[in-house]
C-alpha cells in the first residue's frame, strides 16, 4: 500500500515539481501515471523509491514514512521495491545472468538461492536461453526484459517503471506490457509512468494524470486522454 498525503516538492533551483499530491494505491493495483513532459511524473515516481525526498507531506509505503526515513535505511526500502527505467540501466560488462544476480548479490543472498531465483525470473521474462549473453548482444526489448527480471528478482511488493517502453518499438512494447501484466497477476503493485497512449487505451487500468504538479484526473479504468 502506497499512500501520499499533501506531498510538495520544490527543487533547490526553485522549480516546483509537485504541488500538493494526495493519492492511495492499494497492494496489487496496476496504475498508469500520465501527463505532459515536465508535469511532475518523474518526480512523482522518484518519491516512491526515495530517490527524492518531499519538501513537505508524507509518503507511507507499507507503514513506513519515506519522508522521515533515515538515509541508512533507504537500502532496506529499495529491496522491497523494483525499479525499471527507460534506458534499462544494465551493466555492459556483465552477462544477462550476472546482471540479474547482481541485485541478489548486493543484498547478500546465498549463492544457492541466487542461482535458483535468477533462473526463475529469466524464465518468467523468457530469456533463460540468453543467460550467457552480454547486453549489447540483445535487442532493446530483450534488454528491457533483463532489467525487469532484475527488478523483480528479490520479489518486491512494488515495481515502479519510469517510461519502460519509451525506447522500444510498438511490437516490443506489447511484449513488455505482457510481462508487467503477468507480474501484476502475482500480486505485485505496478506503478508505471508512460507516454504510450495506445497501451494505456488498450490495456485498461487505473490512470492518474498529473499536470503542473497536481493530480488532475484519477480514473479506475481510465484513458490516456492527451492528443499528443
Amino acid at each position, binding site marked *: 500500500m502506497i499512500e501520499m498525503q499533501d506531498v510538495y516538492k520544490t527543487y533547490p533551483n526553485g522549480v516546483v515539481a509537485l504541488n500538493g499530491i494526495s493519492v492511495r494505491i492499494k497492494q496489487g493495483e496496476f496504475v498508469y501515471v500520465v501527463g505532459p513532459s515536465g508535469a511532475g511524473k518523474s518526480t512523482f515516481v522518484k518519491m516512491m523509491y526515495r530517490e527524492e525526498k518531499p519538501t513537505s507531506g508524507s509518503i507511507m509505503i507499507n507503514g513506513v514514512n519515506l519522508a522521515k526515513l533515515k538515509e541508512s535505511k533507504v537500502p532496506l526500502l529499495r529491496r522491497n521495491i523494483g525499479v525499471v527505467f527507460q534506458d534499462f*540501466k544494465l551493466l555492459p560488462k556483465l552477462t544477462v545472468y550476472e546482471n540479474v544476480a547482481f541485485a541478489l548479490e548486493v543484498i547478500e543472498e*546465498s549463492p544457492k538461492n541466487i542461482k535458483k531465483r535468477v533462473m526463475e525470473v529469466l524464465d518468467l521474462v523468457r530469456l533463460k536461453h540468453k543467460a550467457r549473453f552480454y547486453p549489447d548482444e540483445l535487442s532493446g526489448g530483450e534488454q528491457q526484459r533483463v532489467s525487469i527480471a532484475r527488478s523483480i528478482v*528479490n520479489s518486491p511488493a512494488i515495481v515502479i517503471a519510469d517510461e519502460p517502453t519509451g525506447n522500444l518499438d510498438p511490437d516490443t512494447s506489447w511484449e513488455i506490457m505482457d510481462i508487467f501484466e503477468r507480474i501484476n497477476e502475482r500480486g505485485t503493485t505496478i506503478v508505471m509512468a508512460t507516454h504510450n497512449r495506445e497501451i494505456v487505451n488498450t490495456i485498461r487500468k487505473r490512470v492518474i494524470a498529473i499536470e503542473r504538479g497536481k493530480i488532475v484526473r484519477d480514473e479506475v479504468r481510465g484513458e490516456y486522454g492527451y492528443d499528443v
Partner: protein
Amino acid sequence: MTFNTLKRHFRESFKNLGRNGWMTFASISAVTVTLLLVGVFLVVMLNIQHFTKQVEKDVEIRVHIDLTATDADKEALRKQIEAIPEVGSVTYSSKDEELQKLIKSFGEEGSSFKLFEQDNPLSDVFIVKTKEPTDTVKVAKKIEKFKFADKVKYGQGQIEKLFATTKVIRNIGLGLIIGLLFTAMFLISNTIKITIFARRREIEIMRLVGATNGFIRWPFFLEGLWLGVLGALLPITVVLSAYSYVFDLLHPKLENTFVQLLPFYPFAWQIGGVLLLLGACIGIWGSMMSVHRFLKV
C-alpha cells in the same frame, strides 16, 4: 558480513583492477613515482638524523675543578651537578688521568708532555653528559655558578651552531616529506576519481537494488589497498637495493670517521614497512575520497 560476501568483495576488487587496466596502471604509477621520491628522502633524512644524533652524543661538558678543592668539596660539587634534572651522567677524571689522555692523543710527540708528570699543571675534571644534547648550554651555564667549578668548557659557540644546523636540516626534510605525501594523495585520488567516475553507473545500480553504502565501499576500499600496495613494491625494491649498494660502497671508507650510515638491518625492514604502509594508506584514502562523492550519506 558473511564469508561469501567477503569473498565476493575480494573477487570484485581484483576483477575491477583487471577491467580498468589502464587506470590501474596509471594509479599504480602515481603511487610508485611518489613513493620512490618519499623513499629516497626518507633514507637520506634518517641517515642525516642518525649522523647528527651521533655528533650530538659526543658533546660533553668538562668542568675543571678548582685546585684548592678538597675531596669533600669535590664530592659536594658532584652532588650539586647531579642534582640538575637535565644531567645524565657525571664522570670524574683526575689530573693524572687527563695527562695520560693528552699524551695518548698526541701519539709519538706526546712523550714530550711526560715532563709534566712530576708537576702536573692540569686540573681534575668532571665530565658531564646531559640527557638531551640540546640542553648542554643550559646545564653548562648552571654549573659555572657553582663553587669550585673553575672553568666550564663545552665547545662554546660551535655547539650552538651545530644544534641550529641539525634542527634546520630536520625541519626541511620533514617539510619535504609531508609535501611529497600530499602531492601523492592528490595524484592518486584524482586518478582513482576518474576510474570511479567511469563506474558511477555501477554504483547507481547498486544503490537502486538496495546495496548498503558499506557494501558498495568494500570493493573500492580493497581496490585502493591493492593499488597502494602494488605501487609500493617497486619503490621498496629500488630504494633498498640502492641503499644496500651505497652502504657497501661507503661503509668501509667511513669506518674510521665520525660519520656512520645506518646498518642495513633492521633499517631495511623499517623503510619497507613505512613505504608499504604509506602506499596502502594513500591508496585507501584516495579510493574512499572518490567513492564518497557518489554515495549519499
